């Protein structure tokens, strides 16, 4: 039981990093990417190759993975600068599908469908860290670090520029914001931090293949963000924990056919996504639809009041 919980803790930490970094571009920059698993995968493959051939120290594997993912994320930044909304979702989908083919066909780097086996464990302070009891504190610490970094960014002037662009690109531009630069940086940061999750994942499991980095993973991470609450601080973490605990809970329900657990789990989160969007689009942690509407109405009223006041002044 303890081993099970520790293992779950490691997975929640890793997926929380993914959800938090996806939320960074989704919730604050308005960039809805369906290609987040690509950077998770790139991080895992680069981390694995570095650990196998250079050094298993996290101070080598993590920077290497971050640099490669950051460079590749420019492929995602390119459409993000050109288009918005449905077009960007489609472009990111295209990127995700291309990446799956590359992951499963580029045998030299990724080991093809078979994947990479025998990835060495993390070495820290002269010891191999592979048991869940030792790995969990490490993974949790990294997740907290990532959460803090993204929080600091969101609350900096950079974060305010980001939300300004999300809400109105032309208004932000008229305030002299360099939209292209800000958007590109946000995508690069998100991808580089997602790669950290990949490194941990590869070291922890010591085996990776393309199955872990498909569109399903991208959708799962997106579901974590949405169910938890897009654009909230802790929503993505709550979402990650919830969706990873679900399969374990379902296996306790004796009346469910055990062979269909995977399908039932997917049905539950599919329904969860649809029902939440209808009744509570802000997610579990986010504001309810009613609160949003009230806030919007108040903002509109305030804006209307201002323009009224200005008109009066003009009349004088």
């Amino acid at each position: 039981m303890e081993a099970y919980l520790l293992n779950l803790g490691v997975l929640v930490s890793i997926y929380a990093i993914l959800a938090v970094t996806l939320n960074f571009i989704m919730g604050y920059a308005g960039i809805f990417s369906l290609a987040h698993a690509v950077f998770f995968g790139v991080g895992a493959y680069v981390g694995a190759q570095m650990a196998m051939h250079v050094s298993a120290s996290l101070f080598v594997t993590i920077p290497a993975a971050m640099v490669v993912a950051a460079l590749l994320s420019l492929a995602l930044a390119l459409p993000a600068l050109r288009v918005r909304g449905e077009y960007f979702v489609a472009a990111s989908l295209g990127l995700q599908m291309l990446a799956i083919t590359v992951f499963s066909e580029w045998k030299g780097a990724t080991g093809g469908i078979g994947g990479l086996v025998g990835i060495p464990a993390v070495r820290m302070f002269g010891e191999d860290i592979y048991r869940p009891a030792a790995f969990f504190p490490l993974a949790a610490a990294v997740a907290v670090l990532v959460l803090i970094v993204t929080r600091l960014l969101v609350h900096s002037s950079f974060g305010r520029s980001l939300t300004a662009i999300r809400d109105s690109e032309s208004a932000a531009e008229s305030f002299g914001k360099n939209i292209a630069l800000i958007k590109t940086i946000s995508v690069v940061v998100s991808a580089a931090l997602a790669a950290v999750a990949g490194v941990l994942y590869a070291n922890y499991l010591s085996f990776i293949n393309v199955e872990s980095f498909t569109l399903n993973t991208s959708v799962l991470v997106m579901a974590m963000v949405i169910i938890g609450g897009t654009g909230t601080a802790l929503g993505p973490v709550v979402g990650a924990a919830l969706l990873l605990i679900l399969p374990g809970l379902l296996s306790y329900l004796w009346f469910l056919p055990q062979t269909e657990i995977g399908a039932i789990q997917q049905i539950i989160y599919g329904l969860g996504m649809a029902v939440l969007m209808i009744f509570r689009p802000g997610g579990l942690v986010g504001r309810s639809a009613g609160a949003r509407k009230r806030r919007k109405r108040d903002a509109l009223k305030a804006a209307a009041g201002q323009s009224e006041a200005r008109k009066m002044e003009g009349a004088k």
Partner: protein
Amino acid sequence: MLWLQLTLTGLQTGALYALTAVGFSLIFGATRVFHFAHGAAFVLAAYVFYWADTAGLGMIPGIVLAALAAMAFGVAMDRLVYAPIQRHEGSFFTVFVASFGIGIVVENVVGMVFGRSFVTIDSTLSQSRELMEGVYVAPLAWIAIACAAVFFAALQLFLRRTHTGMALRALADSPELIRVFGLDPRRLSSIAFALGSALVVPGAVMTALGSGLNPALGHHVMLISLAATIVGGIGSIGGALVAGFVLGLAENLALIAFPSQWSEAVTFAILFLVIILRPAGLFGRATAH
């Protein structure tokens, strides 16, 4: 003769993609709903047809039932999922996520009922015949191409010559004006969903007879329809048709240069390049913003 063979199979694949994409494009163009569960309508129609066949109901009742199922699904999505969301917010992403969620539900429910392995319906229509030396074509290919032509022509006639059709085209431009003319936007939206969803039926039936079905097919169908709609230009139904054929041909002709595992990558490379270089699509007028 390889290229001729691949062109013919490309046209067959393209015809199925084209009609499904036209359905998606019709819905998206008229209602602005990013109906990601369109692929789920395809899977539902295909499995209802398959079920009718195994129950011994025969081909025509099977097709009718498949069409009813697809249309009912489309209208239900519009009424029960999209309408409530649009009432309070209606941001594109909220709608997309709900649609995606339902797509996942349908895929898994179908998987639980019918199993996840491939199923096909045996038919003489899918047996290839030698057209000329080294070139094989199944009768299904001609039926597919003819279906695409007939259904598309009928749809164009409907959109241009009937009052409802014209109102549907107007709905995309201005729902307010529709109300001024005393028409009901909600009813028109349901019509768009019923028609668009019905257009998956030829593709679904022929896939069941030809290359076979599995529950995960909806994903692939959806991605192709989406790609065709964007490559063709959002709002252009003719563009979606042409792009459907282009993608079908590209997927097959790519086999000359690349191994078959890369054929899907070719489709998405085209999509990615079009979005970056020409976001309005090949036939679109509007800009992407």
